[in-house]
């Protein structure tokens, strides 16, 4: 009998697991896939290592910083700052028709950019920043409110509004067009106020440190162990049945599988399905390995968020891919002491999940190739032409994401409605991860920590 079974060995599940194992709770993480990672994973293809999900780690803080999400989570997981080997970005931008706003990990620089490009808006922008700084985004009792309404009260130029929303939505909005204000604050702080960094080795290092810490404290991890059903009796979870038919008993179950996905596993479904709608926003990502460094071609930016349309539209497109906007990421463009072995460019764009889910296998491969070419052509308006330097290409779609993470519709940011307290219709079944609502790499770990602290480690629990 376990104290807690955690479904999913992604960052949130591992973080929850580390907390429980550290305090000597018998805990087991069950993971369906053959490897750890979930939405922030990695793979090897044709002798090359690739990251999935992670472009950059947000919420950067310098070594020795005592406040903020990064130092909070390092303390909670008993990790040292050095463990994550975070190297700050070189500089990123938001590129819209006729205007480019650059930003770095120094917020004053971004503020100055806004003042230069949008002089009439700077007072409103500063008021908005103050409001964001005062908002406690970790308070689980925050109500859902429209971020666009709040931002529009401070900023009257619709283009600046869109330019602020663009990176925040691309990196963490489960909802089309608008965001919940708390979600907006989480993303604004993590991207603009704190900033980007990356370990030289990529997401593998973070995942490895998390698993090592979990195992060191006595946690058990079972791969290839998908959960078929969450078993309950009289409103209380009693354990899980694995796909193999094996039964595991537990006093609590914490699921990072997603809210709708978790409800589908319950032997007794919730009385109302309505709060558990899966998300519908997903992406296609193309990955290019180059025979040179991107900087040698003149591309020195870490991340470029681009949009060529008068308004920025964030929604599942009717076309297979929305070519108007996207994200260009070069993992090479961080301030490493030694360069990465190979040049890489990753380009990501909004995709229509339905289209990619339902293509027949042979057509799927052909369409992936066709749309990869189109994505590049679109992105080349915002970066130097690198096509003659490409030595290998890969791409993944909403279908790939669902296959490896079991998140419905390949919805990387999960359900539009977050269940912030993590509670469900079963008194000892809790949700953590994407659908609890702290997004991003750091957010996902904080989500696991918060749910473990709140429901499982409080002395009376």
């Amino acid at each position, binding site marked *: 009998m376990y104290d807690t079974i955690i479904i999913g060995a992604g960052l949130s599940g591992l973080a929850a697991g580390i907390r429980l194992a550290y*305090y*000597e709770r018998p805990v087991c993480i069950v993971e369906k896939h053959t490897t750890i990672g979930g939405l922030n994973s990695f793979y090897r293809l044709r002798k090359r290592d690739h990251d999935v999900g992670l472009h950059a780690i947000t919420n950067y803080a310098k070594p*020795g910083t*005592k*406040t903020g999400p990064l*130092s*909070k989570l390092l*303390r*909670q997981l*008993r990790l*040292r700052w050095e463990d994550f080997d975070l190297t700050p970005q070189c500089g990123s931008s938001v590129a819209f028709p006729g205007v480019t706003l650059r930003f770095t990990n120094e917020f004053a620089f971004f503020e100055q950019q806004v003042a230069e490009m949008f002089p009439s808006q700077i007072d409103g922008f500063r008021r908005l920043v103050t409001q964001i700084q005062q908002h406690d985004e970790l308070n689980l009792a925050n109500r859902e409110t429209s971020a666009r309404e709040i931002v529009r009260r401070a900023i009257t130029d619709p283009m600046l509004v869109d330019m602020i929303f663009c990176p925040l939505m691309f990196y963490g909005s489960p909802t089309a067009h608008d965001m919940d204000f708390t979600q907006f604050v989480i993303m604004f702080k993590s991207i603009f106020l704190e900033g980007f960094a990356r370990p030289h080795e990529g997401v593998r290092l973070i995942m490895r440190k998390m698993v090592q810490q979990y195992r060191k404290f006595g946690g058990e991890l079972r791969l290839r162990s998908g959960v078929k059903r969450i078993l309950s009796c009289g409103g209380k979870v009693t354990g899980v049945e694995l796909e193999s038919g094996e039964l595991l008993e537990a006093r609590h179950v914490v699921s990072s599988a997603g809210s709708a996905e978790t409800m589908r596993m319950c032997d007794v479904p919730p009385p109302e399905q309505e709060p558990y709608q899966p998300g519908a926003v997903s992406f296609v990502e193309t990955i290019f390995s180059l025979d040179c460094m991107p900087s040698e071609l003149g591309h020195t930016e870490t991340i470029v968020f681009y949009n060529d349309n008068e308004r920025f539209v964030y929604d599942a497109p009717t076309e297979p891919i929305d070519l108007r906007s996207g994200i260009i990421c070069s993992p090479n463009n961080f301030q490493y002491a030694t360069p990465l072995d190979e040049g890489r460019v990753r380009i990501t764009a909004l995709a229509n999940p339905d289209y990619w889910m339902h293509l027949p296998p042979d057509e799927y491969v052909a369409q992936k190739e066709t749309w990869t070419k189109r994505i590049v052509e679109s992105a080349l308006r915002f970066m130097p032409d690198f096509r003659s330097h490409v030595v290998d290409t890969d791409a993944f779609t909403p279908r790939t994401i669902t296959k490896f993470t079991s998140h419905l519709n390949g919805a990387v940011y999960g359900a539009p409605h977050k269940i912030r307290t993590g509670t469900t219709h079963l008194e000892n079944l809790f949700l953590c991860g994407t659908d609890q609502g702290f997004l991003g790499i750091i957010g996902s770990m904080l989500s696991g*920590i918060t749910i473990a*602290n709140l429901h499982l*480690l*409080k*002395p*009376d629990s």
Partner: protein
Amino acid sequence: MSADQIRQVIMKILCRIAPDNDLTALKDEVPFREQMELDSMDFLDIVMELRKLYRVQIPEEDYGFLNTMASTVQYLIPKLQTATA
């Protein structure tokens, strides 16, 4: 365990929870919160560490006693009477 030994235990726990803080100048009569960057998650950790190390149960209504080093030590003396450091 003596008051001095209990103080040592708390110092060890604080060191684990907030390794980046300089604890040498910690004032026993001043609230932890005013001297260190501790939030509610960290206070839960003090409680949990004590439970892990000495099986001491501290109910939520008693968290107020953990305000300063002096009040924490006073509060723990009867609870750790029979414990060995």
